[in-house]
């Protein structure tokens, strides 16, 4: 990928946060920027990040492998990440996750819908334990969820996606 003009500006803003000789510090924010458009990183994205920071692609790969929020495989336009850790599980999150997968027409472990719009996955704690069942969709919180609310949210996102011509 090449950076768009807007991304180039964002990248410069990011780099200003760190000492001039510490560009490596910008690797996580640069990866977020590269991943923002399609929710995952291909080889071109990884190369673009390495080049922007003057580092080896190997290092970028090691970072992507270490941190769970970066992905090297295609996923849906909307990442639905449901917490099923102990505090949430004590408030029904495991059953909620199963029902969500069913409602989305996915197997019991989640996955990506056929239209490539949604990826549903189980994650560990997201700091919303008092509002279980909870999840993040593209890192935005959705909390104290009922099945009906999910249907509404999903319908809203589908409409949004079709308006955008996705």
């Amino acid at each position, binding site marked *: 990928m090449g950076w768009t003009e807007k991304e180039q500006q964002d990248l410069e803003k990011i780099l200003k*946060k760190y*000492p001039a000789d*510490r*560009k*490596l*510090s*910008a*690797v*996580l*924010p640069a*990866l*977020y920027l590269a991943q923002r458009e399609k929710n995952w990183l291909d080889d071109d994205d990884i190369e673009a990040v390495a080049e922007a*920071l003057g*580092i080896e692609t190997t290092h970028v790969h*090691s*970072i992507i492998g*270490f*941190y*769970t*929020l*970066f992905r090297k495989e295609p996923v849906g336009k909307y990442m639905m990440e449901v917490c099923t*850790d*102990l*505090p949430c*599980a*004590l*408030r029904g999150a495991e059953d909620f996750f199963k029902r969500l997968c069913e409602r989305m027409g996915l197997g019991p472990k989640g996955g990506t819908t056929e239209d490539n719009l949604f990826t549903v996955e189980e994650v*560990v*704690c*997201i*700091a*919303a*334990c*008092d*509002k*279980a069942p909870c999840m*993040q969709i593209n*890192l*935005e*919180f959705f909390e104290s969820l009922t099945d009906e609310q999910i249907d509404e949210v999903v319908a809203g996102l589908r409409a949004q996606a079709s308006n955008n011509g996705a």
Partner: protein
Amino acid sequence: MANPLLKEHVLLRHRDIEDIHKIDVYLAHDGYRALEKGLKEMTPDDVTNVVKASGLRGRGGAGFPTGVKWGFIPKNLNPKYVVVNADESEPGTFKDREIMESNPHQFIEGVILCAYAVGAETCYIYGRGEFWTLFHGRMQEAIDEAYEKGFLGKNIFDTDFSCDMYLHLGAGAYICGEETALLNSLEGLMGQPRSRPPFPAVAGLYAKPTVVNNVETLANVTPIVLHGADWYRQFGTEKSPGTKICSLSGRVNRPGNYEVPLGTPIRYLIEELGGGIIDGKAVKAILPAGASSSNMGADKIDTPMDYESMAAAGGMLGSASFIILDETINAVWAAEKNVKFFKHESCGKCSPCREGTFWLTSVYRKLREGYGTKQDVELIETIINQMEGNCFCLLGEFVVPGVRTSLELFRNEYESLASEENEVDQPQKDLIHTFF
């Protein structure tokens, strides 16, 4: 919601004052007066000394005296950094998120005061990646407002003191809550812990002197500087002064954050503030510091929530993240949940944690799926004995207390899952492929 133990919240002030996240509202309620007082009337050492005198202890979990930590920063080495640990990733903990979402300026003011006290001119707030929306929204807005009003930037209150503040997001790694792993992550490396010494106070971020403090800790600094140490000590106990935000979750009617004076009994948190247990059931166990804490039995419910009393009762206050299990919950299932969390989050640097969590997960699964033997229960003990004291960082050690106390308190539940038949009838060779 009104809290009968506090006339006014010290930290969760947004519950008393609407819209305090907006700088004008905050300014109308003593906002940035502590900073003005600190910069104009106090030397940096004065600020450190009032924090020392207040007895404030780190609210991230370790409970180390904050003023003492600041005192470790060498004066003659520059530049220095303040790094805020906003990585809040412990299952059961969601207090820093509420502070930053709803009362961000009190926290930001505390960070600037800390920078002034130690002589730092650059502050980084390191938040977990899941705070993306918060950091690109409310927190960045609050920092921008502080710059506009001149509380950040050059020559604050026309003094020689200048200070910049930047937000930095992690990307999904519990280990980055460990301060040296956090520093590595901020430097653009994998978030794995460093050897100590050198301690961050001497060689932290970019090998420069660095204070690492938790969000809630720094939110306390603002009222301490404004009102003084004696005022602060009206709350809490002699050795654990102040108030603490407790994150209450699990099988209670009203989970949420509750701010209480330290020393308040657990019972009050669960029964009065949390509205008791769902369906009137009995408490089975209390995990007072999230997934990494011991299980305290129901008989410990009257323990005062302060650092000393909790430790004496076999628990720890930690970040005060109370996960409540009731009598309907299977203890082995609960422990397995946490073990799986730690396996997922092990950074892989040291073998006791990396291998220990792997084997624990396998043995728990074997037990829970009905293939367990008595030897498996003993094997769990063997594994945690080998982990304890041998992990590279504390986060590895965090696995041990929960498993050990779960076994101590609820061994019958483990043994009821073990069967003698499994010892003779199961083809052990195949099981190895299934579970290990």
